[in-house]
């Protein structure tokens, strides 16, 4: 794939560095095209099967029915209401969870005493399946937004906390010494050495935190919501509308993938120095 791209359009490019980067990109597009192939083939096959009467498609609606549902929801404007509600919840929970987790992780990573005091407790809490908090959160925060956002934040918290803590603990002492040799102040040491070296692990933990955020928003919306994609799921089940359920699932997939792509896209410029074995994504 790489060789094709290089010989394909960039023969005159002498800056190897540049050519490399571009070929990677071209390779990337080809890769995503390959990734989309399977779902499309399956969808078309199912559509055909239902069309030609090989399957009745009542419980597993064909793509056309799903898109029709999506279109109807979009036309009456309801789709946007649900998407907006869910996205806002995930965004708020992700932001809150990330913020708290980053601060806790940084403090625990920086100070051994704090780590000894708090980390065991946090690890213990992590062992609790987060859904188990739902009843308690409802008692504490009511059934409206606060309890939902809190639940999502809790889901986001742990991967991010662990990511930050682990990243700080594994910062190479040898590289910190380079900073000491050049007599960096404590602040400069954090900004110029610690921060850049934990960034890759941090981004990975943010991405898994975001994934959990999407997971928990469904749980949160199951516990009673009047709008949101999770509500569409419950509603579809209660009214026997499988196409609405699949439409909501499809929307979740798109949103989850898109937000993950956005996150990695936003952080990419800061990580392009990385020497990972795939040479990027």
């Amino acid at each position, binding site marked *: 794939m790489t060789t094709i791209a290089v010989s394909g359009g960039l023969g005159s490019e002498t800056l190897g*560095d540049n050519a490399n980067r571009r070929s990677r990109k071209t390779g990337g597009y080809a890769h995503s095209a390959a990734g989309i192939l399977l779902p499309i083939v399956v969808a078309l096959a199912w559509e055909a099967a239902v069309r030609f009467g090989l399957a009745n498609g009542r419980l597993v609606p064909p793509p056309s029915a799903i898109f029709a549902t999506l279109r109807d929801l979009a036309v009456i404007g309801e789709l946007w209401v649900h998407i907006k509600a869910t996205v806002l919840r995930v965004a708020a929970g992700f932001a809150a969870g990330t913020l708290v987790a980053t601060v806790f992780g940084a403090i625990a990573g920086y100070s051994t005493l704090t780590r000894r005091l708090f980390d065991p407790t946090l690890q213990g809490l992590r062992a609790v399946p987060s859904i188990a908090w739902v009843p308690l959160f409802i008692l504490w925060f009511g059934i409206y937004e606060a309890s939902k956002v809190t639940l999502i934040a809790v889901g986001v918290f742990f991967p991010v906390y662990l990511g930050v803590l682990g990243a700080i603990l594994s910062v190479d002492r*040898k*590289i910190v*010494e*380079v900073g*000491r*040799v*050049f*007599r960096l102040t404590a602040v400069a040491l954090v900004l*110029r*050495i610690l921060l*850049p*070296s934990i*960034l890759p692990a941090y981004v990975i933990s943010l991405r898994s935190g975001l994934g959990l955020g999407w997971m928990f928003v469904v749980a949160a919306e199951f516990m009673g919501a009047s709008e949101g994609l999770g509500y569409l799921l419950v509603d579809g089940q209660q009214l026997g509308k499988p196409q609405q359920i699949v439409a909501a699932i499809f929307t979740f997939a798109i949103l989850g993938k898109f937000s993950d792509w956005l996150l990695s896209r936003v952080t990419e410029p*800061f990580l392009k*120095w*990385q*020497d990972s074995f795939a040479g990027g994504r």
Partner: protein
Amino acid sequence: MASLEIKDVGKSYPNGIVALSGINLSVRPGEILAIVGGSGCGKSTLLRLLSGLDVATTGAITLDNAPVSSPHPSVGIVFQEPRLLPWLSVADNVGFGIAHLPRTEREVRVQTALKRVGLADYGRRWPRELSGGQGQRVAIARALVAQPSVLLLDEPFSALDAFTRVELQDHLLELWADTRPMMVLVTHDIEEAVALASRIVVMRPSPGHIEAEFDVTLPRPRDRLTSRFDEEKRRVLLALNDSLSQRRDATVPLLKSA
């Protein structure tokens, strides 16, 4: 000219290991001092004390009559590995220690330093795109760009093959000839010591101390193929062997390369 004095220095680590004891040494202005000795005899420890990264347990180290207890702006160090920051380009790595200077001056200094180590065109690369020897040269450039009056090198070429090593040794000599900073060079390689040093210190372990010390009087530039060079090498080897013969029963050879 700077002066570096080491008086009665001892170092014990928290785990109770006495890595150094009773070290007395004064580094003369403009000289290249080589420290040779077997593994574990405290060479790196001594260098870390000189750099201010660690503090001596007893005794004192003074640079220009001021005690060294933390890293000093006019002391540069090159470690055994390049230790480049992977998120900075080669040029930014070289300029890491002079970030406080105005941009234009910094760029000029970085470019000069890179040119001096033969990597003028490599400024925009990432560290991962360098070979081991190139990485080590960048590390030397990074230490030199701050214009130190003392340059400490801890086995800087030990991870390299023989050809690259000789090439970099010559490079280092040229750099030294420029401004003649004091250089303290830790090495396992006797040929390296004889080729570079004006004086060689032989160390022995348990606890680390100085066993022998002698001047290398060969004129520069030194030709490695002459019999005088070989003689000088033999002299160091003998000193090392003398120091080893006292521990013939040692199971592990104390000298890695000869």
